[in-house]
């Protein structure tokens, strides 16, 4: 036996976990920035909300591509 360690089950679960790190940080930064900008300038909340959701949707797409590819490249 020259294996040091072995993994049972689906490797795509691990792959998806890795793929979700980046978008997780990204979505966190987007909401943090929105909270910060709203705290600094409360009147701008309505103005920037649309951009927050746009940014959130674009970043989230990366994590969702991860879900889809986990099933596609089986």
């Amino acid at each position, binding site marked *: 036996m020259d294996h040091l360690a072995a993994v049972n089950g689906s490797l795509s679960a691990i792959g998806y976990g890795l793929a979700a790190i980046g978008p997780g940080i990204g979505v966190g930064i987007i909401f943090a920035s929105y909270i910060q900008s709203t705290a600094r300038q409360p009147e701008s909340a309505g103005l920037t909300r*649309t951009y927050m*959701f*746009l940014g*959130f*949707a674009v970043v*989230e*797409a990366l994590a*969702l*591509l991860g*879900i*889809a590819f986990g*099933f596609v490249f089986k």
Partner: protein
Amino acid sequence: MSGLVLAETPFPPSVEDIFPPHLFGVEWLTKFSLFLWLAVALVLIYFLVSYRDPKIVPTKKQWLAESIYGFVREGVAKDVIGHEGLRFAPYLASLFVFILVGNIFSIIPFIQVSPMAHIAFPAGLAICTYVLYLFQGIKKHGFAGYIKHAVYLPAPWYMQFLLIPIEFLQAFILQPVTLALRLFANMFAGHMLLLVFTLGGFALLNAESFFLKPISLVSWAMTIGLTFFELLIAALQAYVFTLLTANYLAGVLADEH
């Protein structure tokens, strides 16, 4: 004890578990298509009934219908596209309401699955948006003009080798694909998440160790919590789909950069 029967729950669930059998032996009629028609009927009938006899002082029904339409018209069409966007407000509003009703089906007891958790339906909606913004772009800029508008950015010429393929991919492939995939993956993943915690509860209940059995209650409590989280996701994804459709239309209708 029912635990012995429950031991046969499929765990972990796989993709096949969310595809139900054909209803009444008809090949095209599945749970998904049935509830898709139900969503269409609900939206149509609700808006027809609440607008049948409009009052100056609105009734409750009329108020709700008007505020949903007003929210999309003012908050999405006008804010994102501008004054020109008002002619897309009916499309955006029906998109929003239809996706919202479809998504909320994922947490209604005995329905429990959103039609949007099947890639065919988000893909159909994304194709509608794709055709709409291609058509609007070609109408506004002309065919060659639209292609140039979509792929060309003012930048030094040596950057164009990099920018043109990226912009082309973005405008003609990635935008519609991610639009469909985002809605589908959210609804599908949400459904799987509820399934994992529900079936995980049964798996714990059937565990060998006596001390693992009560933990199934924690798992089911998580299911209830996540159901409310799903409601949030359902509303958010309906909004995001509408917002992105409006954003793509705004990009197409913008004047030369």
